[in-house]
């Protein structure tokens, strides 16, 4: 089957085999290694990407299902050469240790903020509950998302 979809703002065409997951497609076909394979059953959040602005688990999403839709990965989050406020906040808070969950976590946060630009700590925790950080950096992640949301609101206000 031929698949056509938008990946990080660019139209892409490919022919994945039957049953290929979106995660496999991104990592193996497009060499975008940011989304990770952590569990293969949608339980850990490490594979999270945006599909039409909503956070999805790429490891349990069929590649075929993104036909005609917009996929956003960590690699496409920032504008050329810069850093997205979420990325900046995660660095400032050192909201990671090993960092393996981090790309998925940031994309999960991006999806959360798309739906709710002003989440309080309780909503952040609820919204990211599908993401596991085994290193236990949860408090810093909550703080990073809270601060990034403030920055994004200010920037949106300016534009």
């Amino acid at each position, binding site marked *: 089957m031929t698949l056509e979809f938008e990946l990080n703002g660019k139209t892409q065409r490919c022919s994945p085999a039957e049953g290929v997951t979106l995660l496999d497609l991104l990592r193996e076909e497009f060499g975008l290694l940011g989304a990770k394979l952590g569990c293969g059953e949608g339980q850990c959040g490490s594979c999270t990407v945006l599909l039409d602005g909503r956070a999805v688990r790429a490891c349990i999403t069929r590649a075929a299902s993104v036909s005609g839709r917009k996929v956003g990965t960590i690699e496409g989050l920032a504008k050329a050469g810069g850093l997205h406020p979420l990325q900046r906040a995660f660095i400032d808070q050192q909201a990671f240790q*090993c960092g393996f969950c981090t790309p998925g976590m940031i994309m999960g946060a991006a999806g959360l903020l798309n739906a709710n630009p002003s989440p309080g700590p309780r909503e952040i925790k609820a919204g990211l509950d599908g993401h596991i950080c085994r290193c236990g950096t949860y408090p810093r992640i909550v703080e990073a998302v809270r601060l990034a949301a403030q920055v994004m609101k200010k920037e949106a206000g300016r534009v």
Partner: protein
Amino acid sequence: MSEDLRQAYKLRFEGELEQEQYEICDFRQEADVTRRDALKALGGGLFFLVAVRAQDRVAPVRIQLADNGVVRAFTGKMEMGQGSRVILAQAVAEELHVGFEKVDLVMGDTDLCPDDGGTWASLTTPQTIPVIRQAAAAVYASRNGTPVSLRSPKDWRVLGSSIPKPTSRAIVTGRQIYPSDLRREGMLHASIVRSPHLKSTLQKADVSAAEQLSGVRIVRSENLLAALSQDMRTAASAARLIRAEWSPEPVPEIATWAEEFRKSAVEPVEQNQARYPPLLRLGNLDEGFAAGTRRLKSDYWLSPIAHVPMEPRAAIAEWKDGRVTIDCGVQAPFLVRQQVAKALSVPEDKVRIIVHDSGGGFGGKQNGECEIEAAILARGAGVPVRVAWSREEEFTQSYSRPAGLLEVESAIDSEGRFTAMRFANYNAGPAGIRPQYAIPHHWVGYYRTKSFVRQGSYRSLAAVANNFAREMHMEEWSARLKLDPVELRLRNIADARLREVIEKTAARFGWKSRKTAQGRAFGMSCNLEKDARLALFVEISTSPEVRVLRMAATGDFGAALNPDNLKNQMTGAILQGLGGALWEKLEFDAQRQKTRRLSQYRVPRFRDLPEMDIEVIDRREVDGAGAGESPITLTAPAIGAALFAATGKVPRSLPLLS
């Protein structure tokens, strides 16, 4: 075999080192570097090989002053999120008097780096840092014609600062390459046919259906059988088509293990030079028990648990001219080099292990596992082979934290002070067995026993088990004596720094003004572990379900080399401890491990996050202690204490809710 090698390797690094005794015993500029391909690839400049001696052990350090102004240090330690990379680079920058950004650290490459032991036992801070500092200071001294001297903490410009991880930008942009992200030209993915049993031997296998798939190769080497393909999905499909027959060995039911431990227990002998002495004796037990006014005996049990690193392990092995290079994420590259060499019957110098910063280890990635598998398959296939474990393999193929049976018996006098204690740990281990309490007559010992599943290191090893038993025993005494738990601790602790940590945390937490109410309770725990002084106070609610609402903790680790990293480690360890405290438990039946998927194994999540107040006391004048492990020993007993206060029943096993 692997376990024997690991024990023997660890023995080489046993024994405490007194920091004041570090000295340079050999210093040379390497002249023959250009003939060594691996080092040649690092560009020109000056290479120094410095040997630092502490007592009877010599640690080699290599430092390069590159032509382009970069300072490069080489260490066998690796990075798995705990911050070794940043603090070692800080140490080099400090003693070479250069900016942090000038330092590059090459970690965990057996061709380039010295063997300074595995990344375990919280040793980087107390051992590797002083060695690297001495070596860097020696290079600085030789370049400037000054005597060798270390920078005093009051003059620190780089050490002692909360410098962010140098890989931060790569991590948040998805550009950090983990072992499971590595790819190699011409590589094949391997999907290994796994036995469904805990222990079994491969009898026969029908690979005919698998071989029909286009592009699939089957490789078998004794018990190892794999399907190889250019993509993982095809390899996995092929492996599923293989009909393998196994002869399983049955495993006793976990309910019988405690009795089996007692039956197979080997009497401990004193080994005071060991890193974790298995027997500590003082005074005379009979005398001690006679001197007490009351006596108490309690038993405790810990279930085996899994590490669950976010990244399932992966390795790529490539053979060239009889030599294999393995890119992977192991915690002990030189140990794994030995294990690979032995498994493949080649000399060690025919094996190169290159460690990449990995997605979490927690003690679970010490051995060669997928690394040995990849090396065997790559040799059989004649091309590079990648073995990337699935989450199911990560649960079932490696070792778990040992189960533990603990028996504590003690006597106390009319002032609430210990007169005697007999403390026995079966199977879990001797780490952290030394009590933080002053007990004039004691026998504290670890019984090695038969174990029925693969077990091995886990963050803080047996210290979680030992501190849980010890602290729950304290809570039982506190209730019987009607003495405040903090007061009981203070009456039995001589160490001034631990007393301060407990009192400070109690005050910050508001311990004295706590009000136990329906469905709300409070608890505390403390420890003195690997030179760290620690205390944790918790508030929990018990309805509708048990939830930790609030935590306050203080840690005194001596000098904080990177205060923010230290706080991150302490917080992360305490939070990881929530899992082992409340829910984590591996389940087995007679032949299989039943726990195989993340959906079957509850780990701490955002929903479990309490309010946290974590403080570190930074004592610059005291040599830094490692902090990666010890805080995890606080969580279970503090919550256990709170549950005891809430229910009146003493929790006797972990996980607390099962």
